[in-house]
């Protein structure tokens, strides 16, 4: 519908609300909006009536009352005298812990498998295809249950590692001992501890802060070095050799700190019937982590494979024609383009993994759903408040992750004419 300048626009009539395309969209939106609002008010009205019948009011006071239950896995100090809020925080941290561990391991598995699936080697390519298809087409819950069964049924009890001729032996250079109750892994020890800084009831070691600061500094230095190398290359056409400077920038301070604080691994040692000295990881965490890793790894493998295949062969050939070596072709031409395809679905897999970590319910890992949406909910009977809070927190996590994805997307977006 074109408006001719000078043509007198017809006077507004009510029927134009329906027949005139300029006004009709307003009518439709107004009607839909009113209908949705009516539905929402009906739902809220029902909820309030139901709550009134049950004699409940909406209130978040329970968060500040004594929780009264124990949580076996905790990253910050917690005991049953703490509040429900602290219990929920412990749960949230557990969710984050297994999600972050899972994302890292799943990426490693996925990249390796995805690349191997494209390998020339027939046998390995087939094996990886089988892995991917089997894990993608069977529910995650089954993998969690199977790995749980492996840990509870097949793994030896801690005392099987005892004696002159033990029935079980530790793996990974005698550093890790999987048992049917926990997995004993080495702990990190400092022989010259610099003391801690107290934040709330939690102490953070100065050593950790020093490492973080040093690594951040090295990263900034690395960036500056890359920039100056690029400047030199743009000016002279010769790229200065930087790899040993970069290596030194990261390694020297880290090695110095390691030596200064006396950083070392304390392997788990069997004392009596149990392992001591090291860290005994709860099997709930290990099982959930392994299952999430293997399951998500299969999806990531497909994403990586698809991303590499998406870069057309002409790009590689063009790079060869320019005289680039295979390694530089990979790092300068193929990977940057493949990453643009890989990263968005990769991040949505991270999102899925984080949400799937709520299957912790199957292994008794106390994540956010286990604390806030589980024991707290059952003890206080505040379904509405607990569920709203829990969904809100998960929503926030997802928004943060997808916000990160949007930032990445806008940075690597193809700038077209």
């Amino acid at each position: 519908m074109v408006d001719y300048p000078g043509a007198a626009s017809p006077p507004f009539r009510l029927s134009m609300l329906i027949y005139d395309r300029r006004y009709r969209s307003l009518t439709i939106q107004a009607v839909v909006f009113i209908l949705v609002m009516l539905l929402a008010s009906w739902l809220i009205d029902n909820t309030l009536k139901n709550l009134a019948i049950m004699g409940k009011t909406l209130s978040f006071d329970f968060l500040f009352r004594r929780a009264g239950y124990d949580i076996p896995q905790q990253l910050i100090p917690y005991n049953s005298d703490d509040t429900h809020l602290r219990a929920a925080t412990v749960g949230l941290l557990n969710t984050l812990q297994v999600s972050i561990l899972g994302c890292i391991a799943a990426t490693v598995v996925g990249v390796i498998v995805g690349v191997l699936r494209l390998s020339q080697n027939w046998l390995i390519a087939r094996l990886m295809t089988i892995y991917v298809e089997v894990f993608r087409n069977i529910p995650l819950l089954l993998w969690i249950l199977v790995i749980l069964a492996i840990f509870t049924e097949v793994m030896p009890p801690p005392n099987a590692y005892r004696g002159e001729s033990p029935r079980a032996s530790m793996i990974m250079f005698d550093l890790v001992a999987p048992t049917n109750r926990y997995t004993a892994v080495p702990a990190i020890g400092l022989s010259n501890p610099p003391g801690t800084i107290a934040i709330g009831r939690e102490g953070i070691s100065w050593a950790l802060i020093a490492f973080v600061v040093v690594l951040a500094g090295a990263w900034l230095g690395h960036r500056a070095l890359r920039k100056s190398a690029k400047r030199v290359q743009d000016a002279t056409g010769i790229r200065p050799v930087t790899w040993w400077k970069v290596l030194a920038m990261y390694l020297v301070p880290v090695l110095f700190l390691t030596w200064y604080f006396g950083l070392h691994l304390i392997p788990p040692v069997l004392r009596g019937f149990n392992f001591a000295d090291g860290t005994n990881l709860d099997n709930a965490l290990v099982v959930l982590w392994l299952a999430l890793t293997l399951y998500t790894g299969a999806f990531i493998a497909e994403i990586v494979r698809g991303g590499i295949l998406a870069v057309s062969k002409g790009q590689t050939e063009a790079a060869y024609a320019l005289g680039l070596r295979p390694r530089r072709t990979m790092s300068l031409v193929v990977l940057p383009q493949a990453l643009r395809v890989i990263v968005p679905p990769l991040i949505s897999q991270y999102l899925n993994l984080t949400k799937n970590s709520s299957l912790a319910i199957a292994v008794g890992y106390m994540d956010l759903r286990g604390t806030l949406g589980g024991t707290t909910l059952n003890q206080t009977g505040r379904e509405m408040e607990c569920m709203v809070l829990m969904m809100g927190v998960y929503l926030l996590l997802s928004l943060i992750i997808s916000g990160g994805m949007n930032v990445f997307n806008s940075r690597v977006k193809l700038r077209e004419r």
Partner: protein
Amino acid sequence: MSDTHAQTVAFVRDTMLPPEPPPVSESGAVKWLRENLFSGPLNIALTLLGLFILWLLFSTLWPWLSHSVWNANSMAECREIIAAAHGPDASGGCFAVIKHRWNQFVFGFYPVDLYWRPVLAFGALFLALAPVLFADSPLARRIVTGTAAVLTFAIAAVLGAGGLELAAIAVLLLAWILLIEMRGDLALVATLLYPFLAVWLLWGGTLWEPLMALAGFVIGFVIWRALSAYGMFAFAAAVLAAVLWWLLLSDLVARGIAAILPMRLVPVSSDQFGGFVLSITIGVAGIALSLPLGIVLALARRSDLPIIKTMAVLFIEFIRGVPLITLLFVASLLLNYFMPPGTNFDIILRVIIMVTLFASAYMAEVIRGGLAALPKGQYEAADALGLDYWKAQRLVILPQALKISIPGIVSTFIGMFKDTTLVVFVGLFDPLKAMSDTIRASFEWKGAYWEPYIFVGAIFFILCFGMSRYSMYLERRLKRDHR
């Protein structure tokens, strides 16, 4: 030339030599092995690694599998049989548990003498789907419908359906196949009627209840067609009439007709559902409902109307931002809060609603991707032809956008079907966890860990892998390459 050298050259070959076979290393299996397994040091290392993995898998799994027992009545009996056959230290699978508890895995706690009903519902599903899935390959369609019909009848007979029921099954299946073969267009109507038939078969009760629910759609459709001259009013009137029918009249009418002509099947309550009957019921219902809802949401999200777009975005992002488990808990704990006091509706229905909402948000994103991938020229061409919004979507945009999004749609289906196992956490008996726990809780099958998991995993694998292969077939069939 031959003249010049006729005297100087002692020998001139006048026929071609027969071609020599290529060297052994350049042909056949040896060449293949050299190229694919041993082409360089890295490749050799990978091959050895692969062989090692294979050997590891084989050496752990094969003894266990090869010792498996298929006929026993308890775990202890299994162990005795294995110890007698392979020595006291041997371990082996006891797949007898699958055989012994087969019905429980498949039907849950469904009444034994009514097993033919879910079987018929499942068999009829293939008859309903075949005209849609295999629209242009009659051979595949006939194979699928024929196999489904024969198997349904045979299984129903084996499971002890009565003579009258068997006759009804045979008549129904035969009539349906004839309909598909003779009148393909009417078969699509039968496909639309299938959900109501399936609900009646699965839950029982009187036929008139699902029929009256169907009548609401028919009334709405008739009013919409009759008033089609009035555009938007017709649609609003149709929706209003259907809603009024469902809220006020349908129950009354159903009860009235049922009093005269009962058409009753023995009712089965939702807590008797379990095993694969439950999974497939929720999965199929979720799949069937989430696709249309997803399309509507995707269109709403790409719409020019800001309010509608905002609402679609909020809905989709909210659903995609929370885990399915929390939504299932909402279904089991909170959904009754949202309804008028005193209503208490079926847990399976509540779960289906939540699973549908969950899947439809993902579906919307997949379809939105398809819509965005469509060149702008298609939209402009549809506008240039003078098509209105819905006609343009229906005739030009959606067929192409849906075709692009087939892989995504099917992987959403697969994801949703796998997620049906999560219903165990709201107290339903899924085949994976609840059923195997129930079976392990019995005295005779205590300690049967691996066998139920392997069995259920294999079934899920077959169904999901089948779906993904079908999507590849569909992609190939619909491919219109512009070379």
